[in-house]
């Protein structure tokens, strides 16, 4: 028997826009199931890696193989979008067809947005917008769900809601998340650390979330505390003597 084909495979890929290269020498394999987290500071090339997967960024050199359908949820839905929540989810596509009403409503109930189906997207909080876009991804039944900065600019309550949805999402879908949130990376099966367009380290969180790597990634000293099964990461303001 052949091993199952990976969903996404980058082999020494150089990615960019036009002639500008943003990400250099990326090697990454995403298999079906679980959560892959692209971790790194702002401007490290995380979004560019995602955009390469659906063709908004170009692979200049190297190889990228994508075997499946993709859904993308951006960090911000820009502009003055007048769509309602339900209409937003119904922009999802399954193959060449639009998602039907029933599947859209089902997806919205999965993320707890059923009470807001007729609200305008522009009237929602950032967290609710993200949940709506995640529902859109669920409705599309895509093989790979890409979520860009799901927890950025959220208050603790909304952050909790979004994280819970992502945790339940990864039991049934393959998810890739771009974030600078270390707590989110701790939930992953695989973490890709990016800085200035280059990979710092790749592996399961227990192996790669180290004080050395985090310090390299963010340029400030980090402390990783392990307490039984729990891991806490802090970036202390004052160095201990």
């Amino acid at each position, binding site marked *: 028997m052949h091993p199952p084909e990976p969903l996404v495979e980058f082999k020494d890929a150089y990615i960019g826009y036009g002639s500008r290269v943003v990400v250099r020498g990326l090697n990454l394999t995403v298999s079906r199931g679980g959560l892959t987290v692209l971790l790194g500071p702002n401007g490290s090339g995380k979004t560019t890696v995602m955009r390469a997967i*659906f063709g908004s960024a170009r692979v200049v050199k190297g190889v990228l193989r994508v075997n499946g359908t993709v*859904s993308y949820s951006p960090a911000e*839905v820009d502009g003055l979008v007048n*769509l*309602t929540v339900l209409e937003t989810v119904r922009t999802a*596509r399954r193959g060449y067809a639009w998602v039907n009403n029933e599947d859209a409503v089902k997806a919205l109930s999965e993320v707890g947005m059923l009470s807001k189906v007729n609200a305008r*997207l522009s009237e929602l909080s950032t967290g609710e917008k993200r949940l709506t876009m995640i529902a859109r991804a669920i409705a599309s039944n895509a093989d790979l769900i890409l979520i860009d900065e799901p927890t950025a600019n959220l208050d603790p309550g909304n952050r909790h809601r979004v994280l819970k949805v992502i945790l339940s999402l990864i039991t049934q879908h393959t998810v890739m998340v771009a974030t600078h949130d270390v707590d989110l990376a701790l939930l992953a099966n695989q973490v890709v650390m990016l800085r200035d367009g280059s990979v710092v380290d790749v592996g399961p969180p227990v192996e790669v979330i180290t004080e050395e790597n985090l310090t390299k990634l963010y340029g400030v000293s980090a402390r990783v505390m392990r307490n039984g099964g729990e891991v806490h990461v802090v970036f202390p303001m004052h160095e201990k003597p």
Partner: protein
Amino acid sequence: MVGKVKIRYVGLFLTPILLVVGLILNLILGEVNVPYTCLVTCNQVKYRIIILDIRLPSTLASLVVGYVLGVSGAVMQGVLRNPLAEPFTTGIASAAVLGGLLGYLLVLVGGLTGSYSTLAIPILALVVGLSSSIVVVMLGSRLGVIGLILMGILITLLSYAASMIVMLMIESINPTASIQPLYLLYGNLSGVLWWQVYAMLASAVPTILIIIYLSRYIDLLMLGDDVAKASGVNPVNVRRILVALTSVPLAVSLAFTGIIGFVGIMAPYVVRQMTGRGSGSVVVPWSGLVGSLILTYSYLASRIMIKGYVVPITAVTGIAGIPLLMWMIARGGFGAST
């Protein structure tokens, strides 16, 4: 909540009824008031000529042009992700005016007479208007929303500059010439002929049917190019196709009736308020209907407002539309709750 829903249904129900009433009023009211019984059977030849040859083509034109403007406004606002966009954001209107002026120059220089001279202005308005759209679509859409808007602004500036020079050339040839094509600036539905109505219908029906069929792609564009691309839809091509499709009936309408402002920006606002929805599949067809409604009553007002005169349409749509728009913006912000 219940009250709001009820108002919505009443609005949806009333729009077609009011439209039909408006069309009938346009046929019977005017400089001469025709008895309404004449709509069914008319013994007097005078009235029959007024209704069939004079008022019916103009009234149908208000229906068609209103629909085209409403649909185009809804498409542009969606495609450009901007509730302040309007059908002429791509510069097609000023390019059509330039075309009209070039047509007039051709008449003067070439000494055209008869039907050639009456056709030169609308045909060149159509050709230059469409060409400007092709340029905008080809060059601008690759650069995204900003590219389209920027190209539209540049086309407008270029058309103004060229129009100024053409007007001076016309004046140098014939200093006493009243510059006829300037009627294109003010919008005029009176005097529309039957063949022009057919031309407008022929350009509008197929393009608008395709636009309505494609209208759900507008929703996808509103969520951003990346979201569209990840869904397997090329946003650049969708924008190109939709802008190109609107430009055909727009250019034809512009050539015959001139620039009619505010309908295209107003109709989608009204529809979003009325329906509480934002999807192109709802907003596009309904904006057409509301556009027809606005233009039909504006045309009626333009003919009966000042006895003996026809007020330019854009003056009427502006007077009715600008306060409404100001109220809506003040109430809901820039599309935030509209």
